[in-house]
């Protein structure tokens, strides 16, 4: 309200039109105050509502994390060595992988030593979900009888009921890593470069005690095919390779020749929280962890 004492001089000096101007001014002042109040109250209500939502959501997050987010593996990638054998020790007497399940963390460096002492050729083939790797234990001798008990005979091809006249090829890394090969001993685009060391030193002659000088050997993961010496003779073969388990999930591996007999298994890669913040480490192509 306008104080007449204060504005009295105006009234006296401006008897005509002054009331109108004053009214306009007062209305404008009221409008200004009202606008400010309206803007403040309106915005404040919305801000308060949103702030409340933010607080509620922020309160819920720890509970959700407790429920799920923290219940995960959070491990620095490590080197995981596996020794996968051909076997037929099930009561069915059919070809199998022993073990048929491999479990690792996402990001782990997986070393596969695939060992067979069968008269048939076998492969460890993994071509699922972005993995591409094969270890092909095939040995052949031209004109062989196929009675594979030493390195003088060729292995049997279960799919064609014939005998291999040539062995798998020890390819260069650039050739072997181009993709899965039907001729290379070790191949696939997931293949890491040769040169890492197999994590578990191996007894070069498993039938004998690993005494000096035949103490367990540090074996290079050389992406090659080898023979095992058993008391001076060769009666088993093995190949070795490594890859990075960069993708979480369950992936089938199989033997190219005997999958229909049941020779398949699964690679299980556990999701690893560590990889969410260390993607480079979990996808590294280094052959050491």
């Amino acid at each position, binding site marked *: 309200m306008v104080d007449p004492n204060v504005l009295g001089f105006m*009234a006296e000096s401006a008897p005509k039109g002054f009331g109108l*101007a004053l009214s306009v001014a007062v209305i404008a*002042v009221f409008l200004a105050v009202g*606008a400010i109040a309206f803007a403040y109250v309106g915005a404040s209500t919305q801000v308060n509502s949103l702030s409340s939502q933010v607080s509620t959501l922020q309160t819920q*997050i720890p509970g959700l994390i407790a429920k799920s987010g*923290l219940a995960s593996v959070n*491990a620095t990638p490590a080197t995981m060595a596996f020794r996968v054998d051909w*076997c037929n020790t099930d009561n069915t007497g059919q070809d199998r992988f022993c073990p048929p399940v491999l479990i690792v963390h996402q990001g782990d460096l997986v070393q596969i030593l695939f060992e067979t*002492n069968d008269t048939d050729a076998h492969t460890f083939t993994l071509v699922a979900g972005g993995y591409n790797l094969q270890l092909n234990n095939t040995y052949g001798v031209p004109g062989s009888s196929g009675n594979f008990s030493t390195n003088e005979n060729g292995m049997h091809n279960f799919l064609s009921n014939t005998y291999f006249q040539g062995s798998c090829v020890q390819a260069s890394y650039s050739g072997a890593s181009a993709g899965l090969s039907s001729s290379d001993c070790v191949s696939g685009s997931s293949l890491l470069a040769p040169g890492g060391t197999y994590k*578990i030193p191996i007894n070069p002659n498993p039938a004998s005690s690993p005494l000096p000088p035949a103490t367990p050997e540090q074996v290079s993961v050389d992406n090659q095919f080898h023979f095992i010496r058993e008391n001076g003779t060769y009666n088993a073969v093995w190949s070795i390779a490594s890859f990075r388990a960069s993708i979480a999930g369950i992936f089938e591996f199989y033997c190219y020749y005997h999958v229909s007999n049941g020779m398949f298994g699964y690679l299980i890669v556990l999701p690893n929280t560590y990889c969410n913040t260390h993607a480079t480490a979990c996808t590294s192509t280094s052959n050491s962890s």
Partner: protein
Amino acid sequence: MLNSDLPNGLGFLAEAAPRGFGLAFGVGIVALFLAVGAIGFAYVGSNTQISSLQSQVSTLQSGQSTLAGLSSVNRPPIVLPVKIAWCLEQVVQDRFCPNIIVADQGDIVQLFFLSNDTAAHTFTMTGTYDFQVNDSGAGELDFLTNYSPISGACSNSGTYAQMSVVVSGVYCVSGTSLLDNATLTANNAYVFAEAQNPSPGLPFASTCVSGEPNGVCLTNPGPGPYYVDDQAHMLSLSISGVGVNATGVSETQGIGAFRATTPGVYIFFCRYHVSNGMFGYLVVLPNAYCNTNPAACGVTKN
């Protein structure tokens, strides 16, 4: 403001109110500017804040949806009996059968390790888990010393305090992860969770061998409790039937327990035959239950 600046339409005001009018008019104009400014300021200012908050709400709702969508194991720990045997695969090399153990975080793993080989074997874990069952009976062969006979069996005479110091070369069962009797009892884990047939080579009830003078009858009383007593038991063929395994060959059975407190994948191995490939992996799956019930899982909360 000068009267001459007024628009023509307002000239009558200037004429009618030569004095004081300017002040009132100025106040009105200023008030109008203030009103417009206040609305603009309030609009722009609050709009920025509202946009920011709306963005936060959207982000949080998205994160909430993502988190709520994640699933994981979420159950109270159990007692998990595991029976692992020494075996020879087709490659005729020493192996664990099975060579993978999968447990949920918090589970109490009862590890029953049996071997009927002529050589001694161990089930050994070191590192995060420190635990060993050593099936070394007197007379069994030491692969690392060219099959020389082990002169003395592993010791069952240690107390829990002695055995739990660290993995031991003396005691049959040892390691810092070894659970004590009180913990096992409190968790109903002192008895192996699967009743055991004392003589797997014999059917239950009595079996009499015909043709023998006076007859020989073997009696298998059927499954009974087997205790997690942190010992290795050397079984041998017995006329009573107790102690005969499936192949009729004596065997060694060691048993101990630990709690799978830490998720991850961990190697276990036989200290004699690891270089022949006798190793496997313990897989401990993360368990959301342990986040809210750390004590029940044996987890120390940071």
